[in-house]
């Protein structure tokens, strides 16, 4: 049998996490087909057909799919799911929103957010904010699985020549109407895939003080993250939140500034390769996961940090 992956894209480009999900899906089943559902998204279908892991692209194009509403996506996924043993998608807000709606109609108990494929029916997934790992075996005939993208490498994007098959749309739903999307545009690397992330917490004291972080992020070509406390306080927008209910990041370098390190924040960053913590409270739990801890007032340490970075001849980008 085969696996069917639902691609995430913005009708122009494939979203990067789709590539990580493709790697995981092809570990589950090598006969991997990808569903590209959207509006005027030929370019997306074409670029996915060039991914060597992909054996076939099923392209469904209609205006009703422009804004990825799950009420419209679900019927068309179900209609095309018949010949597949696995329906797969990444476990970000796109997949988290969509997959359970599909799973319920297929009467399948979904396996969420897997971090490892152990066998065709057995997977590893974090529970309790990553404080425990569960090995779970799905007994459903058709399995619905979401992938934690940061736990799998992105698939290569060139060299493949999968056929693209155009398929008819399914019926449109009038239950939900899309109104608007407020995307925060930035020239920085995306938080989920950045090589370096620098995050601020409640200790930043204000949104204005985040400029200290921005200056260092510019220097290191880093993405900017935040703890939930900093987002709740209105210092920075929600798309920056790292943690159990925000984003999971696994950069080469994660710098936590003025973040105490609640379990819920650690859940989103503790797999990072190198962790730096800057906090004036030497007892803060963040130090227990930090490779390098600096007990200092961030308002003194951050300008010094920038100064020291300026002294370096080269900085990795």
């Amino acid at each position, binding site marked *: 049998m085969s696996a069917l992956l639902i691609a995430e894209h913005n009708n122009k480009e494939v979203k990067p996490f789709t590539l990580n999900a493709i790697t995981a899906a092809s570990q589950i089943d090598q006969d991997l087909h990808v569903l590209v559902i959207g509006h005027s998204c030929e370019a997306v279908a074409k670029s996915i057909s060039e991914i060597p892991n992909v054996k076939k692209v099923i392209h469904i194009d209609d205006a009703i799919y422009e804004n990825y509403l799950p009420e419209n996506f679900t019927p068309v996924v179900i209609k095309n799911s018949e010949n597949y043993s696995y329906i797969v998608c990444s476990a970000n807000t796109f997949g988290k929103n969509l997959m*359970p709606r599909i799973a319920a109609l297929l009467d399948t*108990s*979904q396996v969420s957010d897997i971090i490892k494929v152990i066998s065709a029916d057995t997977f590893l997934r974090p*529970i309790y904010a990553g*404080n425990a790992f569960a090995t779970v*075996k799905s007994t459903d005939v058709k399995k619905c699985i979401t992938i934690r993208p940061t736990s799998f490498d992105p698939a290569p994007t060139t060299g493949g020549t999968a056929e693209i098959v155009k398929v008819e749309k399914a019926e449109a739903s009038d239950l939900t109407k899309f109104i608007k*999307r407020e995307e925060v545009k930035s020239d920085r690397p995306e938080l989920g895939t950045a090589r370096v992330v620098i995050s601020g917490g409640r200790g930043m004291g204000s949104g204005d003080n985040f400029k200290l972080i921005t200056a260092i992020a510019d220097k290191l070509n880093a993405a900017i993250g935040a703890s939930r406390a900093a987002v709740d306080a209105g210092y920075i927008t*929600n798309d920056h939140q790292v943690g159990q209910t925000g984003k999971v990041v696994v950069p080469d370098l994660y710098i936590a500034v003025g973040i105490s390190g609640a379990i819920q924040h650690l859940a989103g960053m503790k797999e990072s390769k190198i962790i730096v913590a800057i906090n004036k409270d030497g007892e803060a739990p963040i130090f227990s996961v930090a490779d*390098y801890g600096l007990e200092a007032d961030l308002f003194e340490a951050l300008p010094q940090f920038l100064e*020291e970075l300026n002294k370096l001849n080269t900085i990795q980008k």
Partner: protein
Amino acid sequence: MKILVAVKRVIDYNVQVRVKEDGTGVVTDNVKMSTNPPDDNAIEEAVKIKESGKAKEVVAVTIGEDKAQETVRKALAVGADKGIHVKTDGIVEPLAVSKILQKIVEKEKPDLVFMGKQAIDDDCNQTGQMLAALLNWPQATFASKIEVKEKSLEVTREVDEGLETIETTIPSIVTCDLRLNEPRYASLPNIMKAKKKPLEQINASDLGVDIKPRIEQIKVEEPPKRKAGIKVASVEELVQKLKNEAKVI
């Protein structure tokens, strides 16, 4: 308008969870339990809508062992009018929870169903979306703002890219984000009054739905521990270490 709110009893968010030595799960004996945090936001929002005059009744429902009733009592103490406890034993997967809730919705006929976007124990993030599918209702997930209009809801959702606004027809399912509101605390007089509010008990086995687990939990283990790091004395030392030892900048 009537609002049904689903609440779950979980290990308190402040507790450092420990894995059982035999690998069968996590330690729950003598561990503080609470309402799943975003379920508190769901109750708060329903009560606020009622206080604004747009809803007449708020019903709180929980599924689980007898002790799960605590979460319903807490919901009653902060303003829910009636509670329902669906008694089950052992693991009830989100698919089974949504099938039970479907039966409760058929019985109670609410206009809106609210719940937290995710339970902090199994971290599945499925139940609301599954219930919406089974009922063929619209779903507004990860809500950080809800506006009740005459025949629809306008909901702001927190998504990876930022914020998204959708309009859903009523009846509707909403799953709530922690930023939706600031849940109130129950006052002592209200806790006392809540004891007199009706709490109906239903056995899951009487609902005629298949709630047998489909996922076998083979083992639960501790995640790999990080090696203990070091404290550096100065920013200068930190930058040197990052450059020459870790080689990440």
